[in-house]
């Protein structure tokens, strides 16, 4: 162990130096004009990412509030008051998330139709309640936002790789 340790530290130092050189080269390339497509993707998906995180935070707050009411720590009046405010914000976020995927909807629909022969329109519409369609297709119980759990920023996260 004692004899191997200096060499281990030497090896670690060498690896660190190699890593430092690699990152410096990548940094200089990015600084002096190399195209960084990942950055563009990151910027584009950032707004959606923020909304998704906001949605999670609001769901956590609502769940927490419900628990506090059940535990008798918040009065019914306060619960209604706070819950109404949180729900209004959560619904706003859901709507903004829907609007965010709207430009891709037609393209996705076309691709699906191409694959499935035009049978995707009805179920897809029910999955994304819009002001116009919400009334015609109320209580879409199984309608989860298809994008809600599909993180669009996967590519963005590859910025460093």
């Amino acid at each position, binding site marked *: 162990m004692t004899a191997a340790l*200096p060499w281990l530290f030497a090896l670690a130092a060498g690896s660190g130096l190699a890593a430092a050189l690699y990152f410096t080269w990548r940094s200089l390339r990015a600084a002096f004009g190399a195209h960084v497509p990942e950055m563009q993707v990151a910027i584009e998906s950032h707004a959606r990412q923020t909304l998704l995180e906001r949605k999670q935070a609001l769901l956590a707050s609502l*769940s927490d509030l419900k628990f506090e009411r059940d535990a008798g720590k918040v009065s019914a009046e306060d619960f209604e008051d706070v819950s109404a405010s949180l729900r209004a914000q959560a619904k706003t976020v859901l709507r903004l998330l829907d609007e965010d995927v709207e430009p891709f909807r037609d393209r996705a629909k076309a691709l699906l139709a191409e694959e499935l022969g035009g049978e995707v329109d009805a179920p897809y519409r029910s999955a994304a309640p819009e002001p116009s369609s919400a009334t015609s297709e109320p209580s879409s119980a199984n309608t989860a936002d298809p994008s809600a759990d599909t993180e669009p920023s996967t590519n963005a996260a590859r*910025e460093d790789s």
Partner: protein
Amino acid sequence: MPAIDIPLFGNVILCLTLIASAYTLAMAIGAGRGRPQLLVSARFGTYATCALVFVGVCVLAYAFQTHDFRIRYVARYSDRSMPWWYLVASLWGGQDGSLLWWTFLLAGYTALTTRWMTGRLLELQPWVLATLMSIFVFFVVLMLFAANPFAIQPGSAGADGEGLNPLLQNYWMVIHPPSLYLGFVGWSVPFAFVVAALISGRLHEEWVLACRRWALIAWTFLSLGLLLGCVWSYEELGWGGYWAWDPVENASFMPWLVGTAYLHSAMIQERYGMLKVWNVFLMCLTFFMTIFGTFLTRSGLIASVHSFAKSDIGTYFVYYLAFLIVGCFALIAWRLPKLKATHRIESLLSREFAFLMNNWVLLGMMLFVLVATTFPLTSEWLRGEEVTVGPDFYNKWMVPFGLVLLLLAGIGPLISWRKASGKNLLRAMMVPAVFGLAAMALHLLFGASVGLPPMVESEEIYDTMTGRVLAGLQSVLPIVSTTLCTFVAICVLQEFWRGARVRMSRGEHLGPALARLISRARRRYGGYIVHLGVVVMYFGFTGAAYDQETEAALMPGDEMRVSDYRLRYDRPRTTVDRNKKMLFTDLTLLSSSGQTLGRVAPAKFIYRTHPEMPTTEVAIRSRAARDLYVIMSTVDPQSQRATFRVIVRPLVAWIWVGGLLLLLGSLIAMWPTTKEILRDRQRASSSSGVSIAAALMALSLAAPIGVWLLSPARASAQSDSSSSLHAGSVVMHNADERKLFARLLCQCGDCARLPLSTCGCGWAERKRAEIRQLVDAGKSLENIQTDYRAEFGAAAIAIPSDRGLDRALWAVPVGIALLAGGGVFLLGRRWRGREKPASKPDARDTTAAAKTTSAAKTTDYDARLDEELSRYEDQP
């Protein structure tokens, strides 16, 4: 690598680190000022900087392992006889190396934070990186120009080094400083977030959420470092205590207090958008205190038993601290309009206000410790007279603060957010109050019979009314503490029960209900476990009131008694390893009926490189009810006569158990949920930052626990450890001697802050003999103290007087704390008065929400939201 000139290579690496960090700082500022493509460059630059620091640490570690004594730092802090683990620990054993170690830990945090920020917080990210890089620049400049760990020795390299100070050669040295540094350095990350929020103007809850877990990580490491410091002090320093209010200890305690205040008040901003200015201020103050603490430790301005040598790096710190003050205040003033709260406190009987009170107490404690720690300097500047503030002063004054804080830890969780009714609160407090009163009654009735009387005698630190009041408080501390600890513990347990009952009403059994309760609301219940840990620790602290101490000189075969133990001195024995000579004294521990309970072997170690500094090794037998703490003061190898000091310390083990509970609670509070881990995995493992940090933390928590559990020598001196700091080898003949010597400090020049009652150096021994002659001649204790002060100055007395400017020591912090308390109360009333009843309580400062709330109301997303909520609640 051997062909390379290691000192030169190390210096080149430091220069490259400075260039890389300055370049990254420039790129990050460019990215923040509207050129987002530079962010990628800044991110890679950050990684490059961190890698270079890593190389620097590896080079220094290599130099230690190969005994490259050309390097001054290596020659000064190692020698050829040291085992490899102490050679690794030498990295942070001295000033220069510990600065490199500090920068290395900062590099670790920075790399993890950068990884974690991949694809998120794009507006904050450039400024976060810029802030972190500016900290790098400061520390690398410090190393290059004032404390270079690769500096070469003048003249030719010696054949061997001076060796690490024997006081530092024990396993706690390997564990304690890294964990403390991790706590100190960790606050850089949340500080970077707050600076980024201030510069970018994004001051709603985003930054609070972003740095929530990072703040918890820093806080937990700081708590771990403090706890390990207590264990080290208790097991190794040989004076029988775990906290001496030394300036270096205080330097770690102050950021912990402010950080704790921040963790509480941040919750209010997250929930109600209040206290924005306050949170920003607290975070800046926490970081400031970490740098200030480092300055205190390293500048050598204040005498401390474990500060580094005096150096000129203090000047650099002063400039940096001034820069921090000016910078932070300028940023806060600039962003003040954006820091306005969106809501006000509705009632003084609310959890928000309880948190404010908690902040007030914590900040009051911090202020008190700060004033007392810096009082020697202040006194010297103001009146040219240096004074010393000893541990008795803190112990007496911190009691009231501690009790109020403990009470708040119990009441806080019971109060509802926004507005609690007095009736509901009283109902919630009923059961804990009954238990508390029952505990009080039991203590009053049976305490004395089990050796834990409800009230104890306490000495006055001043001969004034203030001294009498403080002594009075101290004397009733046991009974008050028992009552409050029980009350608070039941308050916390009641919260678990209330939560579990809700889940049980949905058909779950108690066990799974409790498990899911904690798993679903980790931060809340993790926090409650932390509160429980604090209660248990506080109960342990109370045990100090019941210490029993006996000293005796024994020949082999002789016995001594302490409490209901008997100790038989069997024999001395000597063992030698390549590093030191170890002189043990074997004792058999017997019960009062003569039954053998075990063996203990306190010792003296004499190190090869420091024969002039023999260290005292205590032997501890630890049990839940009490510890037996045995110190061997002297032993004569010829006659085999030995003198022993034995202390029975009740409830000490509770402190360590409480500490573990506290750490467990904070680990639960920060641990990511399955959903978070899965979501982050989808983000190409970008969460690995926090996950790795949490995993590292679990590992670092497990390491000391493992050491503690596996240590085979719990009841004997550690054969591979050391240290007494000249303490633990003093024999007192009576209570008057103890009282007098505790007030007089050793003036030999090396034993800073050590009272004559514990200092074992030759000067102290001679002085004690002189003073004993004076006492025998009939001189009063007061006159002896007055003469001692006249001869050596006010700094030679452990506690300043309660007269003149000395009184400012307690009057200033108490006055400010009272004023601040009044201010908090008036502010709360004013806020409450302004609150409009119809206002919405939790409308967060979300721009998008503000713009489109009305639109959302018209849209029927309710069913969708219920679905999402149901899915959220069903997930593991």
